[in-house]
């Protein structure tokens, strides 16, 4: 498995009245590129791949673990699953290569997920994200920009977000979010 790096142990980074920032526990991540008939892949994964960019779906594998997926581009999806599930997912799809060419790559070690939540979480994200945060509906997500780095933003609730950040950008983005968190908390409302 493509092991996550150890420099970013899971845990809280900032916890203020405005928002909380934390590093999420490592999980398995897979990048899927496919086009044409998706039905055999969907059968192997045990979920329906979302059809619109930004839409998400959940499903299970043969072992019954939960896979979360989001469509990132016209032929691109990101899959997140418990680390133990990754090998099984790869094996289930490997059998399809001959009849349905696709690319499914383990990228678990590529990214770290930052958790941003709290009453002013959306406002906190606006310090680095040029997009209107409210254009990302609850239960959806988008790949977008955060202070110069490409991130994948998942909106789980009106005030709870997950942000997948490539390893080398994590120290900078985490620092920026922590600073923003403190500044929002220091404001007198």
């Amino acid at each position, binding site marked *: 498995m493509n092991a996550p790096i150890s420099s970013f142990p899971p845990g809280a980074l900032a916890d203020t009245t405005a928002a909380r920032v934390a590093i999420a526990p490592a999980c398995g991540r897979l990048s899927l590129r496919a086009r044409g008939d998706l039905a055999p892949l969907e059968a192997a994964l045990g979920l329906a791949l979302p059809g619109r*960019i930004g839409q998400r779906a959940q499903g299970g594998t043969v072992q019954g673990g939960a896979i979360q997926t989001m469509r990132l*581009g*016209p032929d691109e999806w990101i899959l997140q699953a418990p680390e133990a599930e990754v090998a099984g997912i790869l094996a289930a799809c490997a059998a399809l290569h001959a009849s349905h060419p696709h690319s499914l790559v383990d990228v678990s070690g590529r990214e770290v997920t930052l958790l941003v939540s709290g009453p002013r979480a959306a406002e906190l994200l606006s310090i680095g994200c040029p*997009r209107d945060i409210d254009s990302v509906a609850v239960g959806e997500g988008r*790949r977008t920009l955060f202070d110069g780095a*490409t991130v994948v933003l998942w909106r789980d609730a009106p005030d709870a977000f997950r942000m997948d950040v490539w390893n080398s950008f994590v120290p900078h983005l985490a620092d920026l979010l922590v600073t923003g968190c403190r500044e929002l908390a220091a404001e007198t409302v």
Partner: protein
Amino acid sequence: MLLIHCPYCDETLPEAEFTYAGEAHIARPADPSALSDEEWESYLFIRSNPRGPHHERWRHLHGCGRFFNAVRDTVSDRFLTTYPAGQPRAALPIKEAAE
């Protein structure tokens, strides 16, 4: 900040998510070795640089990652239309969409 409509995401998004990628509809010659130096030079370097509507390529780099084509007015910097790569050149003039 410019707002650009991505034809793949079907959303109008800030320019910061996009990168410019040169003039559109420049086809690579099928047989480069059959070209004269002048023809090859014109393929590589000579661009139209119009004053007014310009067909150009953009990439939704921090998003779906796709290249697409756009028509932008180089005087007003307004995007007149965007359309997926591979589609025929958008005919001019283009009526600006009501905002």
